[in-house]
């Protein structure tokens, strides 16, 4: 018996020469999992890979034991609401979902009943018989959600599902996610705003430039980010003296002296404390010319995600 997990094993995907995702290894248990990263970081790529819309160049993916190459089995347990804001021209909310359900082999009556139920859950019954093309952005977002859940899948893959929803609907939708997660389903959502999802997620996966930066519960991710040492390049008059003083600080993990003895590379786990230490040293008479963050990736990413936008 395979564990009911979604497993990425060393998965890479290139778009021509451009990297999509690079050697992603993930093991996603049931519950709400948020893929968080800036636009273009590879969230949609991971979701498309998982559902077989695109094919990995390397590595393998199993969704509850089923590879993406077997859509007959995979799509029965998976519902994917994409970010592609389109619907067939002919479709009303109701016919759109009913038509999709017919492909699952449901009879027309059952398909219509399920479609109606899905529309009800997303509060779309009033608009059910209008053309999807005439919906507002938020309604189109919800109709895609309804379409993804109509066949009652075990694994829900939702690309930016909270985008464009007004606060009331957003709260209702988040409540739905919670319900599904409590039923033992996978609810995998993506967002480029960490604050939007950190409180509702059982786990968070941070992605940047096609690579996994951190994963785990939101608390572990926060710690991981805080503990991840950052590098700073410091130019000063007496590098070796400064190095010996800095090395006594707890948060400093590593120091490299520059060849010209006028600079040093400091690895610190805490920017604030480093700044305070450098301030004290300056008061003590050390001449410090410049402090430049040499690698701000994770920190900056985190700031960016917290900051919204």
């Amino acid at each position, binding site marked *: 018996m395979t564990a009911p997990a979604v497993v990425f094993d060393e998965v890479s995907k290139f778009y021509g020469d451009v990297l999509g995702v690079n050697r992603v290894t993930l093991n996603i248990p049931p519950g709400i999992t948020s893929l968080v990263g800036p*636009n*273009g970081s590879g*969230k*949609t*790529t991971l979701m*498309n890979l998982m*559902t*077989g*819309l*695109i*094919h990995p160049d390397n590595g393998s993916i199993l969704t509850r034991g089923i590879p993406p190459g077997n*859509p*007959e*089995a*995979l*799509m*029965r*347990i*998976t519902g*994917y609401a*994409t*970010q*592609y804001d*389109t*619907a*067939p*021209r*002919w479709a009303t909310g109701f016919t759109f979902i009913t*038509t*999709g359900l*017919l*492909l*699952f*082999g449901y009879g027309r009556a059952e398909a219509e009943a399920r479609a109606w139920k899905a529309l009800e859950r997303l509060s779309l019954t009033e608009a059910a018989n209008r053309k999807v093309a005439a919906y507002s952005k938020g309604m189109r977002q919800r109709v895609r959600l309804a*379409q993804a859940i109509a066949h009652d899948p075990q694994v829900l893959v939702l*690309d*930016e599902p909270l985008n464009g929803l007004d606060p009331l609907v957003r709260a209702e939708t988040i409540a739905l996610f919670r319900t599904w997660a409590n039923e033992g389903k996978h609810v995998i959502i*993506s967002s*480029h705003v960490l604050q939007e999802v950190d409180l509702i997620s059982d786990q968070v996966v941070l992605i940047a430039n096609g690579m996994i930066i951190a994963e785990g519960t939101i608390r572990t991710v926060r710690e991981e980010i805080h503990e991840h040492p950052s590098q700073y390049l410091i130019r000063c008059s007496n590098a070796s003296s400064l190095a010996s003083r800095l090395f006594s600080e707890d948060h400093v993990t590593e120091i490299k002296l520059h060849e010209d003895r006028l600079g040093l590379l400091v690895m610190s786990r805490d920017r604030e404390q480093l700044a305070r230490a450098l301030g004290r040293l300056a008061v003590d008479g050390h001449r410090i010319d410049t402090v430049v963050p040499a690698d701000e990736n994770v920190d900056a990413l985190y700031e960016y995600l917290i900051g919204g936008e």
Partner: protein
Amino acid sequence: MALRQAQGGGALSGRAGQAWTIAKIELRRAFFAKRGLWVYALALLPAGAFFVHGVDATLRIERLSRNGLTDAALMSGVQKGETVDAVKARLGTPAREWGGTDVRRVRKKSDNKGATTHVIEPAVDARFVRLNINRPTYSGNGVATIYEFEVYGADGRQNLALGRPATGSPPCDPDRGPEKAVNGSVAAGTPDSWCAEDWPLFLQVDLGAAQSVTRFVVKHASAGGESEESDTRDFNIQLSTNGKTFTTVATSTGAGFTDERIEYRTLVYFDGRREARLTFVDGKLNSQGSDHPLRLDEDRAIFAGIFQYFYLRLAIFFGCLGMFMFLFSGEMSNRTLHYWFLAPARREVLLAGKYAAGLVASSVIFSGGALLGFAAMIWPHDAVEVQAYWNTGGMSHAFWYASAAALGCLGYGSVFLAIGVYLKKPIIPAAIILAWEGINGILPHALQKLSVLYYLQSICPVPAPLPDDAPTLIRLLAAPAAPASRPLAILGLLILTAVVLWFAGRAVRRMEISYGAEG
């Protein structure tokens, strides 16, 4: 549970059912795509053409029958040379009648063998005789030709110009100088004449001393054996005693033409099927012809030609191009393809469903169009004749026309579906396919088998008409070698289609959703 079902024993029928579900969803779009309405125009064109032809023929028959029908035996009994009145007395009022008079200017035939004689009374004394030519020929050619210019005095026997010094416009040929017109001979053909084309055109003879002259004979081109059309049309003769002041003594202009009047009359009699046209010239029956407003055998041949050269090669070809090529790429550009790819169906099943939808729609449209065309072709004809045709092969013709159209959709549909899934810009390959199908007849036999048209040829029930004098290349292009029997042709086409679809299936399985910018 559903998963178990799909993988269990009922998997095959489950997939077929799924493909049919997909086909049903797609059918509406296949039939009523806004971009695809021109397909109907292509399919209905032959029916429209034959309908117009039928209406036209029916109206013509109605018009011809207005004065009553004529007995067929009487119609074929008329004899050449009979008068209009005699024919009318026997056959009655014609269905149509018209006539008129033609006036033609024709050249009066003369027996002068190309020589004209000009007499002046009384005789005049002159030393220089000059022939001025204003229009050198009847044909319009600008070269003047004179074989002999003779001048006679009072005794009328001696040619005073013979051998005298002659001058004139520069000769068109150094060997045909003015002396040739006074050498007393016309027998040696062209070199025995004077010719000139530089204006002014003239010939002048010096008689040596002033003499009394009274008659001139000019021997023109036809005197030397050339066409009468080259004879001099308009000229005059002038005389002078001093070579400076000339007096015109004879003129010949536009002579030799006359008006010819021909009275003609045409009577048309109609026996219900055949139309006899009797043409009378000057009141006598001169020629008779016949015409049929409607002929079933002719219309059948025309239908066969339209079906093979237009319907199969162009209408179905481009119709299938429009209906099949964009089954996948159209949804890619509309950004709706992922809905299909996210359905619990194998990609091959999706391909089969979409192909089935296209096939059903295109077959209905084009087989229907072929049958409508066939019906429109038959419709205006005599019921008895149609019944006879229907019982002696007509029914099977209709069946095979419809089948050839449907099989054409099957073959071309698979080809364009495959092109559409393999290539992003499929227009150039489509043009190559059109050329490939077009030159099919001159390819080596092994390559011919790789074209759809090769198989469709022998499924068509009536060979397409081709003029007997058509060049070999056209003959090959129009009617390439085809498999011997229909079953073989159908089998071959099915195998070709299956192979093409298998390749298309491979491409669809590898297809990735790529709508451009992604988050």
